[in-house]
């Protein structure tokens, strides 16, 4: 935690950089370093589907738009092998590999504006406070889009996912117990893809149900640790557990499950989170923006259970 003197020095350094022609880039970099760190720590979309950096020459040009598009190949299905008697030839199948398009849009934070002389009077690092809020807004938007897409794939409990032909969103009665958790982990592997759950996403209320597990349910000292210290992100049931406070996206008593990202789709980052800063006379303005594109290319690696 920087002292007040250090904070004032930081603010003065920023002003000096903004005052010097050609130094705006350095000022931006100073904020970017902080921004990127927070991004990695906070957004569950990025932790479930880590962003892949994509460059201009990796984009696929289209004739009807100059907007960025990336075409991604999918593993093709193939007819099953069969047993045949002698003197019989196999059937033909023509090779066609499915593809899908990933398209991009931009997420921007609100633009902060301030008279620099008013900014000088702060003894807190006001830039960090505002940057935190901007990043939280952007992370919420990212996560919101991610969950909206998930819900579009699996909108209703008990309904068959038309893409896979399997029910991947179930309701399980009996609350959250060792038995029901293990039953939940069976939903995804039941599809024809046989994926195992790699990541579990729950909210900070749901996870507290696990604190109730006794030694016989949780397994020895682990039960003691979590009742003593609370839940810390850890591997449990051979899955990585992510706990979010975004209860509007991940409801109470719901468990969202994801296979390895390579089985789910792509999350491309065309423009990393960037802080635009401009000072014109005594007015300072800044906002953050990023360009990102993502799609679920295959939905068998998604599953959800609501515990009743």
């Amino acid at each position, binding site marked *: 935690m920087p002292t007040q003197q250090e904070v004032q020095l930081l603010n003065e350094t920023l002003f000096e950089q903004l005052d010097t022609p050609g130094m705006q880039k350095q000022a931006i970099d100073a904020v970017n370093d902080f921004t990127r760190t927070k991004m990695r720590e906070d957004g569950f979309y990025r932790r479930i589907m880590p962003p892949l950096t994509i460059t201009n020459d990796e984009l696929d040009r289209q004739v009807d738009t100059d907007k960025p598009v990336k075409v991604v190949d999918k593993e093709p299905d193939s007819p099953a092998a069969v047993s045949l008697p002698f003197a019989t030839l196999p059937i033909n199948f023509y090779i066609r590999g499915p593809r899908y398009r990933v398209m991009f849009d931009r997420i921007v934070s609100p633009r902060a504006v301030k008279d620099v002389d008013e900014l000088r009077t702060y003894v807190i690092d006001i830039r960090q406070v505002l940057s935190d809020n901007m990043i939280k807004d952007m992370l919420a938007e990212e996560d919101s889009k991610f969950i909206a897409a998930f819900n579009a794939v699996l909108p209703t409990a008990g309904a068959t996912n038309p893409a896979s032909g399997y029910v991947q969103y179930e309701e399980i009665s009996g609350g959250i117990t060792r038995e029901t958790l293990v039953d939940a982990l069976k939903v995804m592997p039941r599809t024809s893809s046989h994926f195992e759950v790699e990541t579990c996403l729950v909210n900070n209320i749901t996870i507290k149900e696990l604190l109730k597990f006794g030694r016989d349910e949780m397994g020895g000292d682990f039960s003691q640790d979590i009742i003593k210290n609370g839940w810390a992100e850890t591997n449990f049931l051979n899955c990585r557990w992510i706990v979010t406070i975004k209860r509007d996206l991940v409801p109470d008593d719901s468990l969202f499950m994801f296979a390895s990202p390579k089985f789910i789709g792509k*999350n491309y980052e065309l423009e990393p989170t960037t802080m635009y800063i401009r000072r014109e006379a005594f007015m300072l303005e800044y906002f953050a923006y990023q360009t990102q594109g*993502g799609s679920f290319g295959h939905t068998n690696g998604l599953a959800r259970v609501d515990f009743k």
Partner: protein
Amino acid sequence: MATAPDLMFEHGLDVKKGWFDMASLDYSAKLSSSVSFTVPRGRVVHLELSGGKEVFLPGVSAAHMGIFLLNGSGDADVSNPGTTAGGNFMHQAISPSGKLSGLVATGGYEIASTEFDSTQTYAPGDTLTAGTSTSALSTGGVLTNQSAVQYVNAVCGVVSSGASRNHNGVLTLSFWSVYLPAGTAATID
């Protein structure tokens, strides 16, 4: 049968004056699910609340502010449909989010739009309105000087230089953005 290709300048806005600037007045929202056609760039929309959320609907009426779309609902930065015409799954887009963006009619712009009724004759000073159909591609959000009487119909523009072919060979209508809500002439008198 393959679908006809689309030139990226066939539909859209050229903003001759007043844009781009950081202070430009624009607005973003998703298209209402009640709109059954793919809305091209340049169409006029207005804002309404649907289920507590702001959505765009074509045209202008009553006191709904006109907004000139910079993006079409089928643009690559707006939508990325992943289900085939036959109902088969291709992908489910996480982005883009479905939001369109447009210039608000009270902003100070001179706009050349491809989305106007080219069967009409336009003269400088003609007032413009736009149809509100949610199902007719030919009229929904299309600019026209028909039934565009100030203080009676909602007006979203005044013709500047009129209709002409632009440098891409596409017919466009040049106008200034203004806004007058609809009313009744009798009550205003």
